């Protein structure tokens, strides 16, 4: 009788244990982060399902609706079951609030670049709004729903950082937003959304510029709330909340003001003015000519 097994079976056992550990790691990742990622990125996923022509747009909207219902239920279930303090579901409410700032910063930093790009960054919002409501482009009826869709998409992009990564470091934020997402955006936008428009170097530079700021904002939010916020006095806290609210509201207010000034009803106004200038009068008696053949 031998108490210690010979070489090969031990190796086979250790390989089996390692494979089992890998399977458990993968299963844990899927349960803790993968499912949550699929649910929080539903606004983006539904857009790409339609843009990549994988499904008809209505299936994308159905997915968005179902994910919106499933998300709070899944988070509540994981919070009740999970014992891991690092699991994103445990901090979901915080991450959901943090993610509102990067999306606003992403638009805010593109306002000074407008004179360079000569492209209103809210133009795709009309497209999102037309797709969701069927309202004509260039109207408030398509702009407001489009802005809401855009906000949801940007929010889910912010959530990617908090849900996928264990360490919310500056390096991870820069690699995700400046490295990966901006490069993918530089491919997707010209190919699928800016059809017929040239993707100039200024477009790519603005894209990297805005995504870098988005990453900085995503990295800064947990640090601010966990480190700076507890040390702030009451008046400083009120100022910080007001500042964040201003950052969030500024780009949307700017877009509404610009659209109101330059876009809503402008075409109808131009046509009405042109028709007002036309002087139509009849000289002589009216005649009717008929051509045969």
């Amino acid at each position, binding site marked *: 009788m031998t108490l210690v097994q010979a070489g090969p079976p031990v190796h086979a056992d250790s390989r089996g244990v390692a494979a089992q550990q890998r399977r458990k790691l993968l299963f844990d*990742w899927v349960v803790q982060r993968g499912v949550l990622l699929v649910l929080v990125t539903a606004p983006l996923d539904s857009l*790409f399902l339609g843009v*990549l022509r994988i499904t008809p747009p209505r299936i994308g909207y159905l997915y968005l609706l179902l994910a919106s219902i499933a998300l709070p239920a899944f988070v509540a279930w994981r919070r009740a079951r999970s014992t891991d303090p690092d699991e994103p579901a445990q901090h979901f409410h915080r991450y959901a609030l943090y993610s509102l700032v990067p999306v606003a910063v992403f638009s805010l930093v593109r306002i000074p670049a407008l004179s360079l790009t000569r492209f209103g960054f809210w133009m795709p919002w009309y497209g999102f709004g037309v797709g969701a409501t069927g309202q004509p482009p260039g109207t408030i009826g398509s702009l407001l729903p489009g802005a809401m869709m855009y906000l949801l998409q940007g929010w889910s992009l912010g959530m990617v950082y908090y849900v*996928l*990564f*264990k*360490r919310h*470091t500056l*390096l*991870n934020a820069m*690699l*995700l937003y400046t*490295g*990966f997402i*901006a*490069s*993918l955006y*530089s*491919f*997707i936008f*010209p*190919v699928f959304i800016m059809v017929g428009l040239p*993707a100039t170097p200024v477009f*790519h530079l603005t894209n990297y510029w805005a995504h870098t700021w988005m990453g900085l904002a995503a990295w800064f939010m947990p640090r601010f709330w966990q480190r700076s916020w507890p040390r702030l006095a009451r008046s400083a806290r009120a100022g910080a909340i007001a500042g964040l609210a201003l950052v969030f509201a500024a780009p949307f207010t700017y877009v509404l003001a610009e659209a109101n000034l330059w876009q809503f009803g402008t075409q109808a106004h131009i046509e009405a003015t042109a028709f007002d200038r036309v002087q139509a009068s009849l000289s002589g008696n009216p005649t009717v000519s008929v051509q045969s053949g």
Partner: protein
Amino acid sequence: MEANDYWTFVGLVIGAFAIVVAPRLFQPGHTANSVIYLTGGTVVLVVASIARWRTRLRETQAAESAAHDLRSQGAVQ
């Protein structure tokens, strides 16, 4: 860089390439856009690999240092 975070980057870059970029890599008029994605993705993978390697090196050194401390404590006892 944590193993989870490193493999997340690997999955993101390769997954987006396989699903979105590769089927349209040689579409006429989009070469520059493809090159931008490939360059960005490569930079992400290289920097993440270096960060992961440095973390593993630090972990190994810390483990060796802890083992050395334990051995010296045992020798003293």
